[in-house]
C-alpha cells in the first residue's frame, strides 16, 4: 500500500512532472519517507530540506491534515496509506 506524496508545482521538474508520487515503502517516520522519496526522485529532498537535514523554514509538510511541526517534526509517524503533502508556506513578498 505504501505512502503517497503530493508534490507542488515548482518541484515537479524533479518528480517526472507528477503532482503525486506513490512509494511502495513502509516508512515509520516522515524522515524515512522523505529518504525513500529522495532515492526515487533525486532533487526533491534537497529542496525540501536544508543541508543540515532540516525542513526549510518556508516549507510545510503535512501528514494527512497535521503539520509535522506540531507532531514531532521529521520524527512524526507515518503509517501504511499515509498521504504526505509538501506545501509552500504562505510567505513571499
Amino acid at each position, binding site marked *: 500500500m505504501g505512502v503517497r506524496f503530493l508534490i507542488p508545482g*515548482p*518541484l515537479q*521538474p*524533479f518528480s517526472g512532472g507528477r503532482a503525486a508520487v506513490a512509494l511502495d515503502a513502509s516508512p515509520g517516520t516522515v524522515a524515512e519517507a522523505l529518504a525513500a522519496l529522495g532515492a526515487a526522485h*533525486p*532533487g526533491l529532498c*534537497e*529542496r*525540501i530540506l*536544508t*543541508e*543540515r537535514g*532540516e525542513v*526549510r523554514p*518556508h*516549507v510545510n509538510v503535512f501528514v494527512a491534515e497535521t503539520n509535522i511541526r506540531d507532531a514531532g517534526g521529521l520524527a512524526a509517524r507515518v503509517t501504511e496509506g499515509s498521504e504526505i503533502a509538501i506545501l*509552500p*508556506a504562505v*510567505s*513571499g*513578498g
Partner: protein
Amino acid sequence: MKPPAPLSVGNGDAVLLVGTMKGLFLLRSDGKRRRWAMTGPFFPGSSVYGAALDTRAGRRRLWAAPSSMHWGAELAWSDDFGKSWHRPATPLVRFPEASGSALKNIWQIVPGRADQPDTLYCGVEPSALFASHDAGKTWTLNEGLWNHPHRSQWTPGAGGLCLHTVLVDPAVAGRLTVASSTGGVYRSDDAGRSWRARNQGVRAEFLPDKHPEFGQCVHKIAHHAGRPGRLFLQNHWGLYRSDDGGDSWQDVAHGVPSDFGFCLGVHPRDPDTAFIVPLHSDGFRCTPDGKLRVYRTRDAGKSWQPMTRGLPQKDAFETVVRDGMAVDGFDPAGVYFGTRSGKLYGSRDDGRTWELLREGLPPIVCVKAVTAENVRGRRRAPRPRARRAGERLRRAA
C-alpha cells in the same frame, strides 16, 4: 506562465543580465546599444542576486543563482542564452555537513582568470567563498576563509551576512580579494589558502572603535583590470580608493552629497574613472533630495561630478543596491543601473547622458553587462574597440 521567448544573440552583442527579486531578465543590443530587446523572467518568483557569462575556452555559458524563499538557492546554467536551463538535482553549491551551515543565498558568480578557464568562484550567504576548478561541475567550500579566526565575529547587515564581492586579480596570480557585509575586505595572495583583513583606513561608523582591523560593512569593491592594485570601495558610510591592492585605503568622498551608498562601477579603460549612486543615510537609503544622480569621478576620486542628463531630478526617491550597477567593455563605455522600483537606466557615452531602458520590472538586485562570444551561426558584429585609456572619455566630457 508561458516560458520567456528566446533571445537572439550574436557575437559581439551587448547583453545585460538583470537579476530581480522575481526572476532573471536578459536584454540584448548590438554594439551601438540604441535599442534593447528583452526576455524574461527566468525562474519567476525566485530572486536572482548572482549572474555571470563565462566565455572562456569557447564557452557561452550563462550562470544564474535563483533563490526561492521556499525551496532554497541553487546554481543553474544555460548554453543557449536562456532557451534551456540546467538545474542539477543536487544543488551544486552546498555547505559540507561538518560546517554546520546551510546555504541561504548565492550573491556572486565570478569566472576565474583567463589562464584558469575551468575555475569559477561563488560568494554566498552565510559569508563564504566556494570555488570550482572543473568548469562548475563541482564546488568546494574555501576552508581558508571559512576557518579564519575573524569569521565568528562577522555580523549580518540588513541584507544578511553575505560575501557579496569576489575580485580575481588579472595581473597577480593567486590573488583573490573578497568583501563581506559585515566583515570587510579580505585578500589572499596564495590562491585562497590563507586570508588577511585589508581594511586599513576604512571606518566602521557603527562600532565603538571606528577603525577596527575587521568588521566593516563594506558594500562593494571594484578593481581596474588594467591597473593592478587600483580599487574603489563604497562603504556603509565612506568612499575609498586603494592603489596598493587594498593594503591601505584613502577617503575620496570629495564633493558627493553623501558618502553612503551601495553600488560602484569602474571604467573599462580609464582607471581614474568610476561611478557611484550616493544615497541619503543608512536610515533613509534613498537618493538625496529626490534627485537620481550618478556621480562620476575622472580623477580617481579627487572630485566627483553629478551626471543628471536623462535622469529624473524631482520626486525620484530611488535605491540602487550593491550589485545594481554594471559597466560594459565598449567604447564609449556603457554604464547601467537598476533600482529597487524596477527601473533600468543605461548610458552609452561613459555616463554623460542616460536613458530609461525599462521600467515596471520587479525590484532589481543585480545588473551585469557582458559581451556575447562563441555564438554559432550568427554574424560577427563589431567587437568592443580598445583605445588609449580615457582618450575618448576626455574628449566627450
